[in-house]
């Protein structure tokens, strides 16, 4: 290999590169079109406050989609966990118990989803759609349809730990969600669980004959996503100091969009955790950004759609192959005389 080859080779290995470029271009455009907003730090602090719950849900959904499944019920978990937490805080004055119970409630919802999908073989889109209605229904019912104000939460330790402000300005939840991205990157890419998820999403039959317990892994997967979504609900509820029964309702499509524009394919078999991170920030800052440019409210969705489409197309076109083609082209420019490596079809045989 020539030095130029190795110099460009790392590009292909940078996970989530296309989508990071989209995010960068987007912010540059905003800085030029809405300088008064995007040259100050406040807008970014507000993103660090609003994006984390969405990003956390997207982390779990990345696993789900990698496994070739879908989960439409996480918005209901966001609501349910928020309710459980607020109820415990309000009635028992026990935020930590509420915290644990909220996560447990998420685990329960996810576990039942997992049982339906893995044991009864209900397609996940149907099982989790039903779960979405059911658990929202449960939440609304037990909450009596009312919102619960927990303003007193702001003086508690748990509030400071999860949604406090570092140096008085920086929302701590941004660090939590970033930490989770890093942790779950390792689980997906460097752990037997993540590997099992990838093989199951790729071809469950291959996973099975190679010794993966497909059913158990699927149950664990949905349970894990339940817990993750419950944590997102906790961040959301603590941040806004109030539980309202419809919370999480608007999250389904943006979170799915974040995962897809991040480069995780609906076909299953591979997930891009870093892409999910950047995708969430794109989705989470797009609307505010477009509004700030002042082009008018009617344009917002249209521009959002364009950016999403561009990201997805970029991922497909400049996916792993695309990047290596770019690298090869760049190499050709650098060393014109060098012949490109042949893509011989069947003849890769040893002597």
């Amino acid at each position, binding site marked *: 290999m020539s030095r130029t080859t190795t110099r460009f080779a790392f590009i292909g290995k940078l996970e989530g590169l296309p989508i990071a470029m989209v995010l960068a271009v987007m912010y540059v455009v905003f800085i030029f079109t809405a300088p008064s907003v995007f040259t100050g730090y406040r807008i970014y602090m507000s993103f660090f406050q609003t994006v984390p719950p969405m990003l956390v849900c997207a982390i779990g959904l990345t696993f789900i989609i990698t496994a070739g499944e879908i989960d439409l019920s996480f918005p209901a978990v966001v609501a349910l966990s928020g309710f459980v937490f607020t109820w415990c805080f309000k009635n028992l004055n026990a935020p930590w118990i509420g915290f644990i119970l909220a996560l447990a409630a998420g685990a329960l919802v996810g576990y039942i989803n997992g049982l339906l999908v893995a044991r009864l073989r209900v397609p996940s889109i149907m099982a989790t759609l039903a779960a979405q209605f059911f658990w929202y229904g449960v939440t609304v019912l037990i909450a009596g349809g009312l919102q619960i104000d927990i303003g007193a939460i702001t003086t508690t330790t748990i509030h400071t730990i999860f949604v406090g402000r570092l140096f008085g300005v920086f929302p701590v939840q941004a660090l939590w969600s970033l930490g989770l991205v890093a942790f779950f990157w*390792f689980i997906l890419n*460097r*752990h*037997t*669980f993540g*590997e099992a998820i*990838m*093989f199951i999403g*790729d*071809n469950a*039959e*291959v*996973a*099975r*004959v*190679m*010794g*993966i*317990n497909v059913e158990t892994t699927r149950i664990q997967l949905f349970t894990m996503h339940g817990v993750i979504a419950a944590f997102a609900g906790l961040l959301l509820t603590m941040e806004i100091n109030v539980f309202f029964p419809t919370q999480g309702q608007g999250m389904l499509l943006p979170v799915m969009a974040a995962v897809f524009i991040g480069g995780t394919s609906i076909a299953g*078999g*591979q997930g891009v955790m870093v892409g999910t991170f950047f995708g969430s920030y794109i989705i989470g800052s797009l609307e505010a950004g477009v509004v700030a440019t002042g082009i008018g409210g009617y344009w917002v969705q249209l521009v959002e759609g364009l950016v999403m489409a561009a990201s997805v197309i970029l991922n497909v076109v400049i996916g792993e192959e695309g990047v290596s083609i770019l690298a090869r082209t760049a190499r050709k420019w650098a060393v014109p005389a060098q012949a490109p*490596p042949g893509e*011989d*079809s*069947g003849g*890769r*045989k*040893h*002597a």
Partner: protein
Amino acid sequence: MAEPPQERTALRMVNIEKYFGSVCALKDINFEVGHNEIVGLIGDNGAGKSTLVKILTGVFAPTSGDLYIADRKVETNSYTVKKAHALGIETVYQDKSLGEKQVMWRNFFIGREMTYPFGFLKVRQEKAIASEIMVNTIGFRGKGIGVESKANKLSGGERQGVAIGRAMHFEAELIILDEPTVALSLKEVRKVLNFVHKIKDAGKACIYISHNISDVYEIADRFIVIDRGEIVASITKAKISLKELDEFLLEYSHGLKDKVQP
């Protein structure tokens, strides 16, 4: 065929039956594979060959019957693929051996990863070993295929090469090949057959399933014919020529037809 002094079997099935719901896929299966025997399993589509393979590799539990591996009885209800691997049983499938979108080093170790505590992968070690197998055992040299390549970049023959190389690495005592040559070119089929010869030379056992009778005839010591879930013949190679075997199978299927429509 020269028998070894102490008679051992790699595998023995006693009265194995398998039902899928009310459908009987295997009925009264009794057979064994000697410790250094190559058995060719022959039968039409849907005869139950793959089902039989999946029972002895721990994918399915049989509905009833006993399974012995290396002369030891296996608890069929708690038998799994992992246990089959531990007992030295490796399988190469036509199309189910590799995850298409997964890189080679993952494909080598899937299901029995090398790990640190808490299940984190020893990626560096896995890659090193996978690379060693690919270059030295399978013979990928240079041509742009490495441990970071995804399975969908490989030709059919290369895929089977990887699946076979993997089986060899994990020191199989019994290797099962379930229609491994379906999508392969003649040259690639030859490689697979040569590999089966190597299994024989190494003193291991093998079950080889194929629709190509001349392939099966070349490598097998004994032929087992299975039809609609039942074993209908077991013939050693010494007792039959390829032509006779071919004719037998042909006549047999005619004979059955006659029975069905008297």
